């Protein structure tokens, strides 16, 4: 098994310390940071994402793998920034809407999007409309909103409208999710996309940005 395969394997097993160590080993072997990212970390995380979609693994495994990915990224990030060669697939800002503090689903989406090579800005929970707009103005290409309650899903429409008012409609895409949310609801508020789970969110994000 080569080093990149070992990174992917250990990432799949949630072994953060080992992934960090092996990431350095890979670099010491002369493998370039972009390669380590794509064929080590992202390759491993993609497998985890697939397993999660198939319910072969669950939330704890995904989170432990995400931590392992972060450990590897901590080693790679300064080098990737320096080389400037690696481009993310796109920038996505995620937040749970105003009045809602549910975060698990949003966090999962963030993990799998990062794992698929997107740049993710997690705004947090209880996020007012203006903060979503600011994220768009700061370069987010997709605004992802999460809500879990019927009493808070009503805060999604104002964000879509505010982005339109700010002249960002079309340029910045909106995506929504959460147990309570459906495709029909997304259509009714004018959101560009909806995903029922984290795995589908990656596919939808790619579709919205025209990425294969």
């Amino acid at each position, binding site marked *: 098994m080569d080093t990149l395969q070992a990174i992917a394997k250990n990432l799949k097993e949630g072994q953060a310390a080992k992934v960090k160590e092996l990431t350095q080993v890979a670099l010491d072997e002369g493998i370039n940071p972009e390669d380590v990212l794509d064929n080590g970390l992202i390759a491993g995380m993609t497998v985890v994402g697939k397993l999660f979609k198939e*319910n072969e693994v*669950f*939330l704890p*495994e995904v989170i432990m793998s995400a931590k392992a990915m972060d450990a590897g990224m901590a080693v790679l990030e300064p080098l990737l920034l320096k080389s400037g060669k690696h481009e993310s697939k796109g920038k996505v800002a995620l937040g749970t809407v105003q*009045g809602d*503090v549910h975060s698990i689903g949003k966090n999962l989406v963030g993990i799998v999007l990062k794992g698929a090579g997107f740049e993710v800005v997690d705004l947090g929970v209880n996020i007012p409309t203006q903060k979503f707009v600011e994220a768009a103005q700061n370069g987010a290409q997709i605004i992802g909103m999460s809500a879990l309650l019927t009493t808070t899903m009503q805060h999604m429409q104002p964000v879509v409208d505010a982005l339109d008012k700010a002249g960002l409609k079309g340029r910045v895409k909106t995506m929504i999710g959460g147990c309570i949310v*459906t495709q029909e609801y997304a259509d009714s508020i004018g959101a560009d996309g909806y995903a029922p789970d984290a795995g589908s969110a990656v596919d939808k994000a790619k579709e919205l940005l025209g990425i294969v």
Partner: protein
Amino acid sequence: MVKGFLERLRNGEVLVIYGPIHTLLEQEVGRNLEGHLSEWIVNLPREFQKVTKAMYAAGSDIGATGTQGNGRYRLRAFGLEDRLYEWTLKQVQLTKEVTPENCYVLGHLGPTGVFLEPVGDATADDLYKSYVEQIIPMLEGGVDILYCSENDTEQLVIAIKAIRDHCDLPVWAQNLFYPTKKGFRTMMGVNVKTASARLAEAGADVVGAGCGGISPIGDALAVVKEMRGDKPLSIKPDAGLAQLVDGKIVQPVFPEEMAAEVPKWIAAGASLVGGCCGTSLEHIKAISAAVKAVKGKK
């Protein structure tokens, strides 16, 4: 005073669970409410009591205090952590004031929203303390039952211990299950049989399942069957995924449809039945009527 809650269940009675106080309160007030549920309740005490009385009138045997968001982590997300004691106490008191003799005030320890290490950053001790600081004002307010609901069964085990260390009141614990390709599982991946047995072993008096994506048609019955054990069981699925249509909340699963499932849940061993998100007063009425039909009560 316990007023015979566990005795009634052990004697074969079936009790009806309250509905989602946040939705019902917002419908009562007639406008979108901003901020935290507990803030709504303490600022709208008359409306809250009106909704609570309406739930009892519809047939609920249990009063929801709406305290499920009063854990320190949840309140912290709103910058309201310092209101924990005061609001929890007030919510229990408001509920108690309008609770009839044969009904029960329920202290609701809702999901913390954080994970135990190593998945998250919270230690078992952190979580224990977060439960205790809610339990104290609940006891002071005079709850009859303590109830906890979590995505992680191990957090429920901690909550059960926190309750047991502080009182002898009935302890009711609920797992949330989701349909997966590997059967119903908690978010952490634990199956129904194991997660339910864990609660019983940890000292819960009533073991439950609800919310989470269990459909009331089909799923709920399957879950009750898998939960079967020595303790009284509760089932509280969402009334389908509630939709917001033209500003109104619409439940895909109608009251009659939900009520039609109730006799099956009872036959499978459920002693407490009801619905979570999407459940309306009409649903509670229909569920209550279904229970009476099965149990022959007046």
